[in-house]
């Protein structure tokens, strides 16, 4: 291999400009590859974060309650009335075993019980319908990043404390420390009136999701249970998993283990999944074309080199240098160009991605181009580009090896 290495490097060094352009071509191909990978992976992560950042990856909830008997059929069979959207307020009464099981399940990062219910928030003459979310105060930021989203106040959830979205606070005209009246959306059992509580606004947040910022009221789990008359039970167990793509598998497992209705964020976002798949396919195609461009560039340059060095190859063959050595000489040239080009491409691609991220990042800290430099698939790009260059060199290398020494020398 010493001979092949020596000849390959010397040939590349001899045609400096051509080698430089060829290496630059490979580098550009690798930059395109890493840019596409960083952009598409970054976009995917951003979309998934947008969808799952403030929501559970897996939700455990009771099966919907059977609607009550509407009327008896003439033959004694029951007829049921199904009213879509009707709040039947199913609850998990003994939720602790399911919660413990969820927390022990591999792949689960966190699991928290939550209570949901409708209510009205009133201050003076103003009344707004709200959705209560009751959570354990020490787990308040487990599902939605509440603590990080606070714009005023703190995440202190005593029994009669609440944290609300900024839009709701503005609509109500309340600020930190103001007291408001929270009225349950349903009557207490055995009572003709709903439960009410006077609560204090302790924190104001903005999650950037309109539906939450203008409607959701976070409060202590026990307080919510009392207000909504759900003592001892919870509405759902919400779960965050380590790998969002494993959410369905975790949901299946927990569904079987708890006999609760388990659903994953993927079940709720089928179209997003389709979009991400289409995006991955497009990205793979573009990356494939960049590799193809590299291969064509390397092959054509080496074909020219073979044509130019016909007589030299002939003389090498005449004094006993075998076809294998000639093939290796040209394949090595392809690998060198691919290797160096990849190295340069990876470095520049990484730098380019960082620069783009920096330039496109707005004052809010959110980049307009969702590129993630960490997800540029640099190693894969370098390996694939080098292999593609080596493979592309095989055809010209075989052409070189087939040169008839006599014909080449005489020409």
């Amino acid at each position, binding site marked *: 291999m*010493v*001979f092949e290495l*020596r*000849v390959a490097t*010397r*040939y590349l*060094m*001899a045609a400096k400009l051509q080698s430089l352009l060829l290496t630059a071509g490979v580098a550009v191909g690798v930059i395109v590859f890493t840019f596409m990978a960083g952009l598409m992976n970054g976009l995917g992560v951003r979309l998934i974060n947008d969808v799952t950042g403030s929501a559970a990856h897996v939700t455990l909830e009771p099966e919907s309650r059977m609607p009550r008997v509407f009327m008896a059929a003439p033959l004694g069979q029951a007829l049921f009335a199904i009213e879509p959207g009707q709040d039947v307020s199913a609850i998990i009464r003994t939720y602790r075993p399911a919660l413990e099981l969820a927390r022990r399940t591999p792949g689960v990062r966190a699991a928290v019980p939550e209570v949901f219910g409708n209510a009205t928030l009133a201050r003076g003459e103003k009344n707004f319908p709200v959705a209560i979310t009751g959570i354990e105060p020490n787990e308040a930021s487990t599902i939605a990043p509440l603590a990080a989203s606070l714009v005023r106040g703190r995440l202190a959830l005593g029994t009669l404390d609440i944290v609300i979205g900024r839009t709701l606070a503005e609509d109500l005209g309340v600020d930190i420390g103001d007291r408001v009246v929270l009225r349950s959306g349903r009557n207490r059992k055995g009572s003709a009136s709903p439960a009410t509580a006077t609560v204090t606004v302790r924190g104001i947040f903005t999650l950037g999701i309109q539906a939450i910022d203008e409607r959701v009221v976070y409060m202590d789990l026990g307080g919510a249970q009392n207000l909504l008359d759900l003592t001892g039970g919870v509405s759902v167990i919400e779960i965050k998993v380590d790998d969002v793509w494993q959410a369905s598998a975790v949901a299946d497992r927990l569904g079987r283990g708890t006999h609760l209705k388990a659903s994953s964020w993927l079940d709720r976002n089928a179209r997003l999944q389709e979009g991400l798949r289409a995006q991955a396919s497009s990205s793979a195609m573009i990356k494939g074309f960049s590799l193809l461009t590299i291969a064509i560039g390397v092959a054509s340059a080496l074909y020219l080199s073979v044509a130019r060095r016909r*007589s*030299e190859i*002939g*003389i*090498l*063959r*005449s*004094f*006993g*240098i*075998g*076809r294998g*050595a000639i093939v290796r000489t040209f394949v090595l040239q392809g690998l060198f160009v691919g290797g160096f080009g990849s190295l340069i491409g990876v470095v520049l691609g990484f730098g380019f991605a960082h620069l783009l991220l920096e330039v496109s990042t707005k004052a809010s800290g959110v980049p307009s181009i969702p590129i993630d430099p960490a997800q540029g698939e640099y190693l894969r790009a370098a390996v694939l580009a080098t292999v593609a260059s080596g493979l592309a060199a095989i055809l010209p290398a075989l052409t070189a090896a087939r040169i008839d*020494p*006599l014909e080449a*020398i*005489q020409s």
Partner: protein
Amino acid sequence: MSVLEARDIVKVFGDGEAATLVLRGVSANIEPGEFVALVGPSGSGKSTFLSIAGTLLTPTSGDLRIASENALGLGEKALSSMRNRHLGFVFQFHHLLEEFTALENVLMPVYGARQRIDAASRKRAEDLLRRVGLSHRLSFRTSQLSGGQKQRVAVARAVIMKPDFVLADEPTGNLDRANSDEVMLLLRELSHEEATAFLISTHDQSIADRCDRTLSLDDGVLRPAVPTTQFKDK
């Protein structure tokens, strides 16, 4: 033991009506250390015979032995090995690798033999370059050498592996008279010093005159071998 034994070598190019008979049963022997000229008019088949003797071309029929080894019907690897072990080549054009130094060019056949470039190989290459008068040009790229110097590097390259037999096809064809004389003298001396046989194809009678004997090809037929002096007398 002859370094070249050619028996009834026939070479036909093309087939059917386009077939051209170039060699019509050529037989020749060359002994170790012999310095032989191959002469003949253009188109007589000199280059074809030289190429067959160098295993670069396969004859249509006949027998060929190089250093007593059968040289026909061999595979590509065996042929490469035979050329590397027994044969050397000098062509009208030097065919040196421009990107390499004079010393590296001389060492190329050593690489071809899959041999490591050890101190002994390097010393032999340096000695040969010194012998051809290029001791001061060892590390010069071939692009920095004159035409005569390049051909002398090619001569050193041809004998680096101590071949039994060197085939030279018009080795002075591209040189002026002074360089031509120098190269011929060098070939002759190396033939004696290295005990290497040379078969030199030429159309220049003055070059043939410097050889031990002359083979004369005419229309694909080899005349009987004659000593050069006898050839000259004719």
